[in-house]
């Protein structure tokens, strides 16, 4: 049977959110009739990037401690669980985000618990110390996974200052965060600051104004955050860092370099070129390392763009014996993209997937809430998704080719390899990716 034509896509417009100002805060909401599970998110503009250097990890620790609730002793989650609600709390470099996923018809009860948890937590010193010690131990539990260790090693290779230490403060600096530091951070940055409340789901019967009053109370308006670029990276570039993990049957690889900040980047061009290289299953890195060479289960790349800076990275996991060739093969793919540019098919693939694919991207309340959170954190307009789509529709081969030149810089990369140093050091010294340094995981953070 002949392959059927793909029809004409329906035009897609991201739902226009409803905005209401309540007290010092703003509610931003999208009604999705029939979506019984609502996503609610409260955004404060205090991520890891603005933490003082003597309190690194305080926002992550505070985020954890909120789960102890107004009564302390891990009381929040059980209380919410009885309402079928799931507590959401996470910190990234640019935002402190708390929230709930809850049945829309039980939102009112759950949100009262939520507001108390965010504005009036117990912050008992015993709870804080217990959570801090658990976070410190969890750091090493998670870092026992090679790919996690590789990603956590990147900051110290690309930045000085705050970004050199992992988001949650790392195994050394977090230990110095005391209960009173957490209490002060919470009082200044969370309790007394209204933030922005995002709500997505079936909102028939939900009084948004009432929701806003409950969550914002008499908290002050959210201040505008100042942005300053972080310090440049230390050391010679390019270079290779081997983080020794003796006996590893695979190596976790990350090829990474610095990138401009989110507002400085032309996003459709930058993300577009990253998709051609490694953002899709059919991208060049995956096709070469997985589908042609059979070296790996998967390879990819992407940008991590923050308000004041950015990182580009490509990742994969391969056997020790194919590690060196996997790096050179990846660098060759980047070089080829820069010298020869993209194909018409690649352009079409990137353009189409980011335009006609939008109904798929936003087919859940969570995904829409996540887009709204992103818009709040990065000060983007309500029609941002549509503008972004227009940027992709206007892409050309020339625009992607110039993006490869502008945003991909393997000559400034640090290659982090987490694996068996004894087997890797020799081969990696010969690949021309710069000097090779071997470190133990324990020595990476101070």
């Amino acid at each position, binding site marked *: *049977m002949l392959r*059927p*034509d*793909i*029809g*004409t*896509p*329906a035009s*897609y417009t991201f739902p226009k959110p409803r905005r209401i100002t309540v007290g010092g805060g703003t509610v931003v909401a999208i009604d999705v*009739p029939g*979506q*019984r*599970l609502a996503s609610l998110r409260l955004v404060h503009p205090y991520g890891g990037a603005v933490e003082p250097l003597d309190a690194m990890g305080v926002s992550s620790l505070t985020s954890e401690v909120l789960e102890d609730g107004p009564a302390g*002793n*891990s009381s929040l*989650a*059980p209380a919410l*669980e*009885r309402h*079928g*609600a*799931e507590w959401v709390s996470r910190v990234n470099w640019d935002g402190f985000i708390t929230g709930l*996923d809850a049945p829309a018809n039980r939102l009112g009860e759950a949100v009262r618990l939520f507001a108390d948890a965010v504005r009036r937590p117990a912050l008992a010193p015993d709870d804080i110390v*217990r*959570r801090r010690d*658990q*976070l410190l*131990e*969890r750091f090493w*539990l998670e*870092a*026992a*996974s090679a790919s996690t260790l590789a990603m956590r090693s990147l900051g110290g290779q690309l930045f000085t200052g705050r970004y050199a230490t992992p988001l949650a403060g790392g195994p050394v600096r977090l230990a110095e965060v005391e209960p009173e530091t957490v209490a002060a951070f919470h009082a200044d940055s969370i309790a007394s600051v209204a933030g922005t409340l995002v709500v997505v789901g079936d909102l028939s019967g939900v009084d948004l104004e009432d929701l806003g009053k409950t969550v914002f109370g008499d908290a002050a308006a959210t201040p505008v955050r100042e942005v300053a670029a972080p310090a440049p990276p230390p050391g010679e570039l390019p270079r290779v860092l081997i983080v020794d993990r*003796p*006996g590893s*049957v*695979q190596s976790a690889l990350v090829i990474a370099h610095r990138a401009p900040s989110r507002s400085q980047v032309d996003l459709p061009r930058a993300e577009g070129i990253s998709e051609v290289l490694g953002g*899709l*299953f*059919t991208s060049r890195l995956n*096709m070469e390392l997985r*589908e042609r060479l*059979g070296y*790996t*289960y998967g390879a990819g790349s992407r940008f991590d763009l923050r308000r004041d800076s950015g990182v580009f990275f490509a990742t994969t*996991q*391969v056997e020790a014996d194919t590690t060196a060739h996997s790096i050179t093969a990846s660098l060759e793919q980047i070089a080829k993209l820069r010298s020869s540019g993209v194909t018409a098919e690649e352009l*079409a*693939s990137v353009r*189409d*997937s980011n335009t*006609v*694919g*939008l*109904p*798929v*991207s936003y*087919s*859940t*309340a969570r995904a829409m809430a996540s887009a709204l959170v992103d818009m709040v954190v990065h000060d983007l307009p309500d029609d941002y998704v549509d503008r972004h789509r227009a940027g992709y529709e206007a892409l050309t081969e020339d625009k992607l080719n110039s993006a490869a030149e502008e945003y991909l810089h393997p000559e400034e990369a640090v290659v982090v390899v987490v694996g068996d140093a004894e087997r890797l050091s020799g081969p990696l010294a010969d690949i021309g990716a710069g000097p090779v340094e071997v470190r133990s995981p324990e020595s990476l953070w101070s």
Partner: protein
Amino acid sequence: MTTIGAAGRVGQYTLDNGLRLVTAPASTGQVASVNLWYGVGSRHEVPGRTGFAHLFEHLMFQGSGNVAKGEHFEEVERLGGDINASTSTDRTNYYETVPEHALDRVLWLEADRLETLRDGMTQEVLDNQRDVVKNERRQRYDNQPYGTALERILRLAYPEGHPYHHPTIGSMADLDDADLDYVKSFHKAHYGPDNCVLTVVSDLDPEDVLARVEKYFGHLPARDFVPEAPDASLPEPLGGPVRDAVTETVPAAGVFLGYRVAAYGEREFDVMHLASAVLGQGQGSRLYRSLVVDRPIAADDGGGAADILPFRYTDSLLLVNMLAREGVSGDVLEEAMREEIAKLAAGITEEELDRARAVLERDHLQSISSPSGLADSIGSCTQLFGDPELAYTWPERWTDITAEEVRAAAERLMVDDNLLVVRFDPETAGADAAPAS
């Protein structure tokens, strides 16, 4: 056959070749989620041929009679769609969510590989994907701390030769032995329209969806013969406690406990699902309160210590897993977990039961809140139980289960002679850590 579900949400059809189609509405517009559940999983594998059902999941994306290697992925990604596949003991499923206008193309791609996959299969493709799968095994099992836990658990839980004795990834040796003829015969034996449930979640009229599915799948013949699945009965009780003790480079002692419980779909399974939630799901669960917050000797898992592996055709497994805090030995943690589990037999409160129901219901709602999750749940309920409506009504199964029922089942099942233990202890144990007894 055509039926429309009582709530008007679900349409059910069976094509002449045996393919079952289910349609359901999406909660957001302009998308179509397509999900194919084939009734073949690792339980159909025989000793010496493990890993084939999963290897197939890979080969299905490597080209067919009219589709080049990688082209299936490319087509869907170009539409901004989501695409993947997964293999379990009981089934292999393939799924795509695409903008609605592309539904015909996806149905055609799926029908083409069902009909002509064997035409596109070459030794080169097989060799490449075998390498990929071996690297998947290294990444997920062999290079991951505690990565071999599931493999060890299944080995203890089900006897040698039993179809649930091995994990879906299979063994390296069996993957090495895969040959092209066997691969082709596996496809012929299991991939027929009569062994498939096709679910489409979209805003389209169900009759319209049916017409399209008829167009692309209607002419495909059912299988000549239906292979018999290996016998999954369990004549003997577990005879526990049975143990596997591992000493290797893990960051902390890890304790994995398992109990055989009823097959997925039986009432006892639902009762034990509630027991697992009381015990170890959520921060209000007993293990979290007792071993993470109060004592505290276990690493903070956020309230994810217990769950059930749902097996339809043999006993399921209730699993409990925790990692030790620094300076806490595996023995101390294991003893504490077993003590806490034993307390279930003394009874649970109504409040605990309500919380457990709420936690499980929330998880269920979460899983069907996306069009792809809903399609998957419908495919599961149709393939395993012949009832797609269960995807919507599953939480009702918990409403009439009583606290006494949970207590009594725990007293009967969560006992030492139904217990398996897999213990990981670090090579360089702390001063107070003792070797496994």
